[in-house]
């Protein structure tokens, strides 16, 4: 990955900053003069991943555009917690759209700027996964197709949190939602539904598509900067844990985002003009259990009445991503990777349990696929 070139052995390039780095190499978030696009006093929950992701992304975009940036924001948590009338947390020009039309509003802003000859001012459209994947999907696809000069950012917390943890097209299989449980005795979301919007965006052959998590700041900032180098529609999909909706501890937000990538459940990659040009390799591979156990939305999979077969199926999805995107470092690179698996404080050390590959549990998987349809 291009942003991994700085190698400092004390804090590596993984920490936000490093006092030993020359100022120009420091991350945007390490700077005292960062724009704090989303300022304090917002009403997001403790440990909100979306608030963090929005500041990370917009501060980087503000820096890349030297402050010439306008944002259009879909209805959702991000809008509700940041702008209770008459207050605003936004420190950039910001327009609230309907739930479903943020990409179209962003298109309109870009068109107006073009008409006025102010193409130096750039436009960001943003929303949660509900507003992007479901409600605003037609507007988003249209924006891609028309080639409008907008960076659209989806903050994916895998459900409609603003409406009380309701299932969206981005809710993963087996995750429990508060208001939208499937028919039947089990509370988890079904397998075989939902949409993979980064890949749909790639299918539009737009200039730039990327995924990121709030656990990899350098990578996220790099992708925003890269996105701002292109003209035309660009799409950034950021994984942002939601402590309230996922039933996780507020202190674990970044840890969960780190684990989702390390398990392979959420591939972190970038694509230009429809082709994948880079993936963020797994540094310390862990089984999906480590990720799932931290979240009460998966609690029904564990315990005496648990569902190891469902966990195995989720592991299968992770393994598929690893294969599909080549998420494991190859031999030469692997030599560069740390030995023992040690995650955040509190996680057990030592070798992770051997991860069963999809091939190994074929019988079970085949049975499940036959009864529930194939995994996406």
């Amino acid at each position: 990955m291009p942003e991994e070139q700085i190698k400092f052995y004390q804090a590596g390039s993984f920490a936000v900053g490093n006092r030993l780095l020359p100022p120009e190499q420091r991350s945007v978030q390490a700077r005292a003069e960062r724009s704090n696009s989303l300022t304090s006093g917002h009403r997001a929950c403790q440990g909100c991943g979306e608030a963090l992701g929005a500041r990370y992304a917009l501060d980087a975009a503000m820096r890349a555009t030297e402050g010439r940036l306008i944002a259009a924001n879909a209805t959702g948590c991000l809008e509700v917690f940041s702008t209770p009338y008459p207050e605003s947390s936004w420190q950039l020009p910001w327009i609230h759209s309907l739930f479903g039309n943020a990409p179209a509003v962003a298109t309109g802003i870009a068109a107006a700027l073009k008409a006025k000859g102010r193409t130096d001012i750039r436009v960001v459209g943003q929303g949660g996964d509900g507003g992007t994947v479901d409600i605003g999907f037609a507007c988003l696809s249209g924006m891609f197709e028309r080639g409008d000069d907008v960076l659209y950012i989806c903050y994916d917390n895998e459900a409609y949190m603003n409406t009380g943890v309701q299932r969206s097209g981005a809710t993963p299989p087996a995750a429990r939602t508060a208001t939208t449980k499937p028919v039947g005795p089990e509370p988890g979301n079904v397998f075989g539904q939902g949409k993979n919007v980064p890949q749909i965006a790639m299918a539009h052959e737009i200039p730039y598509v990327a995924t990121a998590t709030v656990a990899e700041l350098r990578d996220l900032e790099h992708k925003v900067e890269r996105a701002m180098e292109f003209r035309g529609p660009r799409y950034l999909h950021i994984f942002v844990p939601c402590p309230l909706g996922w039933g996780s501890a507020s202190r674990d937000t970044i840890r969960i985002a780190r684990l989702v990538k390390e398990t392979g459940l959420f591939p972190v990659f970038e694509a230009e003009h429809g082709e994948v040009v880079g993936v963020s390799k797994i540094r310390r591979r862990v089984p999906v259990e480590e990720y799932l156990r931290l979240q009460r939305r998966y609690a029904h999979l564990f315990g005496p009445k648990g569902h190891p077969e469902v966990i195995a199926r989720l592991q299968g999805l992770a393994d598929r991503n690893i294969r599909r995107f080549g998420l494991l470092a190859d031999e030469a690179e692997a030599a560069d990777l740390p030995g023992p698996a040690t995650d955040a404080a509190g996680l057990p050390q030592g070798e992770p349990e051997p991860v069963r590959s999809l091939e190994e549990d074929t019988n079970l998987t085949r049975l499940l696929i036959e009864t529930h349809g194939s995994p996406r």
Partner: protein
Amino acid sequence: MDKPFAITLDVGSSLANKTGTWRTERAVYVDRLPPCNHACPAGENIQRWLYEAEEGGEGYERAWRRIMEDNPFPAIMGRVCYHPCETSCNRGQLDESVGINSVERFLGDEAIKNGWTVEAAAPPSGKRVLVVGAGPSGLSAAYHLTRLGHEVTIHEAGPMAGGMMRFGIPKYRLPRDVLGAEVKRILDMGVRLELNAKVTNIEESMREGGFDAAFLAVGAHISKRAYIPAGESAHILDALSVLRGMEGEERPMLGRRVVVYGGGNTAMDVARTAKRLGAEEAIVVYRRTRERMPAHDFEVEEAEEEGVMMRWLSTIKHADEGKLLIEKMELDETGFPQPTGELEELEADSVVLALGQDTDLSLLEGVAGIEVEDGVVKVGPNMMTGCEGVFAGGDMVPDERTVTVGIGHGKKAARHIDGWLRGMPYEPPPKHEVATFDKLNTWYYSDAPRTVQPQLDPIRRQGTFDEVVQGLDESNALFEARRCLSCGNCFSCDNCYGVCPDNAVLKLSDAAEANVNGYEIDLDYCKGCGMCVSECPSGAIRMEPEEI
């Protein structure tokens, strides 16, 4: 609000909404005790000096000055210390412990190369202190007492300063120019050194010299003897006189086949010295097994590399001219060696006994209040003996007998002597909580294996007393320093500042000058999520419950 009913309000900032009221716990920056500091017998602030060294360039001198606050011998320590700091280093649980000792040596050598010196820190007190013994402990006390403003005279029984650093540690581990440079630096601060001046009665010496206090560090220079039935012409020596003899004009005559009896570090030193003096065979005879040997592993390994042979589970039954009778031993259930009655002969031109040392306490005879137990002097927690104003440290008091422990005693005693002289007893600051491995978030540290110090080729070690372990150069010393995890102490990585979803961590602009932790929690907006705590790599933040 003086607006009429039902009218549009002015735009306001969310800064008006103090979300800090939501909080039930608050994040607090802490300064935990790094395990290296905790383990250091000389009480060095290792994490802190590594922090300075990480900057390279001018940081080296700052780092060296940090060491000098606690220990006046960085170049010596960097060679002969058994570095318990590295044994306790948290990085050892991640990949390999930080090579603290090798960085210390690099800094010590830089100081000698560049002639860095230290000045007394306090104005003259007008008090005079007598230090007995110019070994590590005595020199350390003299150094710290001088820094604290007292006038110090050292009385040394031997012909040269250095004590066991000179007469116990062979040159191939500690070159004498390094020893000389660090001792000279202390003397140049104004410490008076009287050589060949054995103190025979401490009260008399104090009275005659008009001293206000004394620090005794006479060491343990009398080799323990074991009764070995021997023929008339058997050649039996003791380890210390062999090592001491190496400092004189005439080198000890050991012969072609040398047997060393004992299993400690001194036994290894003598065997390796014998090899260098030209012995074809140097054999260590020890009653127990290697696992039970008190010698450090690296000393045994280096000795074996140099061709020193080991006879485990063996004892010397009888010594005669040119040969020994060895009896095989076996360990009983309690691990104690028992004779088996199985005998064999071993050819030997000489036998060197390395069975430990006793201390010469004759200078304390008749002094009221002194308590001696197991051959060493009892001291209080302030290092004072039962006699008011007479303090003691080093090998002559009950503790582990290493150079570093002696240096630590010297520092500790100096602080208490200073407090005693000023009538304000020294109160050591309370120890902080130890920054154990589970307090860290090691995700943020890249993998970086330890730098291996080059060693002199074994074949080149045989005839010479050249230093075996070589030092690091600037580039790899910097690398090694930067491997420090900074356990329990902020190292300005900006993680807390970056990961706060509420921008409630403030970065202080003048922090660099103040050289303190550069952040502050903005309690107006901190919601108490704890993310800064869980993402702090070094465990320097803690959640504390709010009083509700």
